[in-house]
């Protein structure tokens, strides 16, 4: 849980953040006080790549030209050799941050005894019309520092590093054009309104800025043509204005007028930043190897697209009326995966290729000593049968909302259905991708049932041609029978996460989300009660499942709980109360990581995390729909949304 303002000492060391004693003790390898918290980061982007900016004005993470390419700044995972671009006040200053309302334009306000200044960070947008009259770089970051009152001294350090900090770069001063360096096939240009001195691969300056003055910086990357070098004149400010308006137009398009409007729009904007516009893919997070356990080894590369998130993501986009994004995402799901169809991998690269082989970058310290830093993801070879249900459910939602499934899409869906018919009874790795082998996961069975159920519904409504409905119905019944017989533990009075076991998992809350069980059924109530009893922390947050080595609570699981309550598993007040509690765990910019450390309330894992933000949007939508008496999750079997008066106590 965050305060909005904090004090930094920006002298010669990176900021001393709000690290608690416990975190200091847990961190190993590097001095914990040198590190920003994960919550200290804000994100900017252009739907192709993203950068993370810390509260002290240090840009600590950037991969160009796209999310999953090697970094040029990686201080996020190694303060010494990762590379950074800092624009920070010299000496102590209080810091407040915000996004310009309904946009992804980040503002960091520095204040000390002598004055205040605002640092504006963005990756600019441009209209098609502007390309007709001016040339613009392919990839660019704009940073503008404006002094409001008094005067402040700022320190500027521009220290890029090649390929995840592996090598320093050779900075060249090119007269009035600025600084340039070359990495691989691309050229990077830094244009600055301040003269920078180059020392040992770092361009730096100290400069006083006085009321009314501005410093402007443009950092760009070009790969396939001579670079375009934009001027730092008035057009620089025009581009910031245009980008702000473009983002606001997008953010204000969201059709949601409920109580949590600002946090829902912020989540939608974060989700948009994690989308890759050229293909329609949406990545899980913009970073790699931010730890799920401080000082631990649960550090993964999330810069790829997980099909697991498909159903929730489509629901969020459709119900907020972001049709273009929903359509692009669905097309990506069904077309980018064509090379492997009817089989589906659990994750793909931005263009639907196999994600890279997992490698460990041993020369990096890791975030607060959390080693190793990994790139690529070994989960690419795992089997997760749930992804078929998630993709089919996403397509069904799209169609039930009025979208058109063309012949190719229908063919792909039937291919998935036929694959499920043949393979639903196999053990798999399951939704959480443990590396301990395959088991018969209830969640995977649930999603196989979902695939069958949705395909039958699509066919019955005439939205899917030539589907073997009777066969799908038979398999659907067989899966239902197996789940009801073998995933139900009579002694525990709960469904369990693995057939014939006594294990619990928060994903069991989704039995009602997908419409397998009615929210108010005795079995669902028993399962919810068991999850609360065994997987809830004293703070009321949920872990994924019980495990020997502790990890943070999994944020999306708590949002699933909100949805469960909002759909009739509890009262509306209970749903509001839990949602309100969860909102306190977002950072000062409204962003969430994958996990929340229950003891400190701080974010853990890769950041920001699409799955969490999608969960938040879904929970807010379900609360709002219940308040308005609207039908929830209309794509599910209708029985699952019916509540008796006693079940809906609000």
């Amino acid at each position: 849980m965050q305060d909005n303002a904090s004090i930094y000492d920006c002298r010669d060391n990176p900021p001393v953040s709000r690290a608690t004693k416990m975190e200091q003790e847990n961190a190993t390898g590097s001095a914990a006080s040198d590190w920003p918290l994960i919550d200290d980061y804000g994100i900017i982007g252009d739907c192709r790549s993203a950068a993370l900016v810390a509260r002290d004005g240090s840009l600590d993470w950037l991969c160009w030209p796209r999310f999953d390419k090697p970094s040029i700044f990686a201080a996020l995972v190694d303060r010494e050799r990762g590379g950074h671009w800092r624009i920070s006040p010299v000496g102590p200053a209080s810091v407040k941050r915000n996004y310009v309302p309904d946009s992804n334009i980040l503002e960091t306000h520095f204040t000390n005894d002598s004055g205040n200044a605002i640092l504006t960070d963005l990756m600019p947008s441009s209209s098609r019309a502007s390309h007709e009259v001016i040339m613009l770089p392919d990839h660019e970051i704009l940073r503008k520092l404006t002094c409001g009152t008094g005067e402040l001294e700022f320190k500027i350090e521009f220290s890029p590093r090649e390929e995840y900090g592996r090598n320093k770069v050779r900075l060249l001063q090119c007269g009035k054009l600025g600084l340039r360096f070359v990495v691989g096939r691309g050229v990077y240009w830094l244009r600055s309104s301040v003269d920078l001195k180059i020392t040992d691969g770092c361009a730096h300056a100290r400069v006083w800025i006085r009321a009314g003055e501005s410093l402007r910086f443009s950092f760009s990357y070009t790969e396939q043509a001579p670079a375009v070098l934009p001027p730092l004149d008035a057009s620089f400010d025009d581009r910031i204005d245009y980008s702000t308006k473009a983002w606001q137009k997008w953010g204000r398009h969201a059709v949601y007028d409920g109580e949590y409007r600002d946090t829902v729009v912020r989540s939608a904007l974060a989700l948009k930043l994690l989308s890759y516009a050229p293909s329609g893919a949406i990545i899980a997070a913009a970073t790699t190897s931010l730890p799920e356990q401080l000082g631990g080894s649960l550090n993964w590369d999330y810069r790829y697209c997980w099909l697991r998130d498909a159903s929730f993501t489509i629901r969020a986009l459709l119900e907020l009326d972001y049709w273009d994004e929903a359509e692009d995402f669905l097309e990506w799901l069904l077309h980018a995966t064509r090379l492997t169809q009817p089989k589906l991998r659990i994750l793909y690269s931005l263009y639907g290729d196999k994600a890279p082989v997992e490698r460990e970058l041993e020369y990096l310290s890791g975030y607060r000593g959390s080693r190793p830093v990994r790139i690529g993801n070994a989960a690419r070879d795992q089997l997760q049968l749930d992804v078929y249900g998630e993709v089919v459910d996403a397509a069904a939602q799209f169609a039930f909302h009025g979208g058109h499934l063309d012949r190719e899409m229908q063919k792909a869906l039937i291919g998935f259905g036929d694959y499920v018919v043949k393979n639903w009874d196999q053990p798999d790795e399951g939704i959480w991708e443990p590396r301990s082998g395959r088991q018969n996961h209830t969640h995977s069975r649930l999603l196989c049932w979902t695939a069958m159920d949705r395909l039958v519904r699509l066919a019955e409504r005439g939205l899917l041609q030539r589907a073997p409905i009777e066969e799908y119905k038979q398999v659907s019944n067989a899966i239902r029978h197996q789940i009801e017989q073998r995933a139900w533990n009579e002694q525990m009075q709960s469904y369990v996460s693995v057939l014939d076991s006594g294990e619990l998992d928060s994903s069991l809350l989704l039995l009602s989300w997908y419409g397998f069980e009615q929210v108010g059924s005795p079995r669902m109530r028993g399962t919810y009660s068991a999850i609360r009893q065994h997987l809830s922390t004293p703070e009321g947050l949920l872990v994924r499942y019980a495990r020997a080595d502790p990890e943070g609570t999994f944020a999306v699981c708590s949002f699933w709980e909100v949805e469960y309550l909002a759909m009739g598993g509890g009262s509306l007040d209970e749903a509001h109360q839990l949602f309100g509690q969860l909102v306190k765990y977002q950072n000062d910019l409204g962003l969430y990581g994958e996990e929340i450390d229950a003891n400190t309330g701080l974010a853990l894992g890769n950041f920001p995390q699409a799955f969490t933000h999608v969960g938040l949007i879904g929970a807010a939508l379900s609360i709002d729909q219940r308040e308005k008496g609207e039908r929830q999750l209309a794509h599910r079997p209708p029985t699952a949304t019916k509540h008796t008066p006693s079940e809906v106590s609000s």
Partner: protein
Amino acid sequence: MNWTSWMLSGFLATLALSTMLSASQGFGLTRMNLPYLIGTFVTPQRERAKVYGFVIHLVNGWIFSIFYVLVFEARHMVNWWFGALLGLAHALMILTVGMSLMPGLHPRMASEQHGLNATRQLEPPGFMALNYGVRTPISVFLAHAAFGAILGSLYHLSHAA
């Protein structure tokens, strides 16, 4: 001079030149994109510039091939290696004279001396176009040598016939 042979040989050699330059750019050997550089003489719009530039470059190459053919005829020497030599000389001229004149001639190109402004924003090529990648001279020499060699070979065939 065999005009029909020149037209066909010049066209095919120019296509080969464009393909080689484009391929070397695609393989990451250089960021020099001649169609884009030429096209931005007439429009700032990136995609349109590439199309215009490609057409202009094609016509340009065709016209340039006349000079090659004139040299072949003047020296009474038509073969692939002489064509390649002419191509190398041509490339040397482009990389040295052409590239150094470019910031002054190109309406949208910035220069290290004068900086940039609202219209002049394109990165200048520098000596031997090295700003566009250290392997740029290699790709330009190879592409123009191939241009001359193909022109020499094909024009030689018409002579032999």
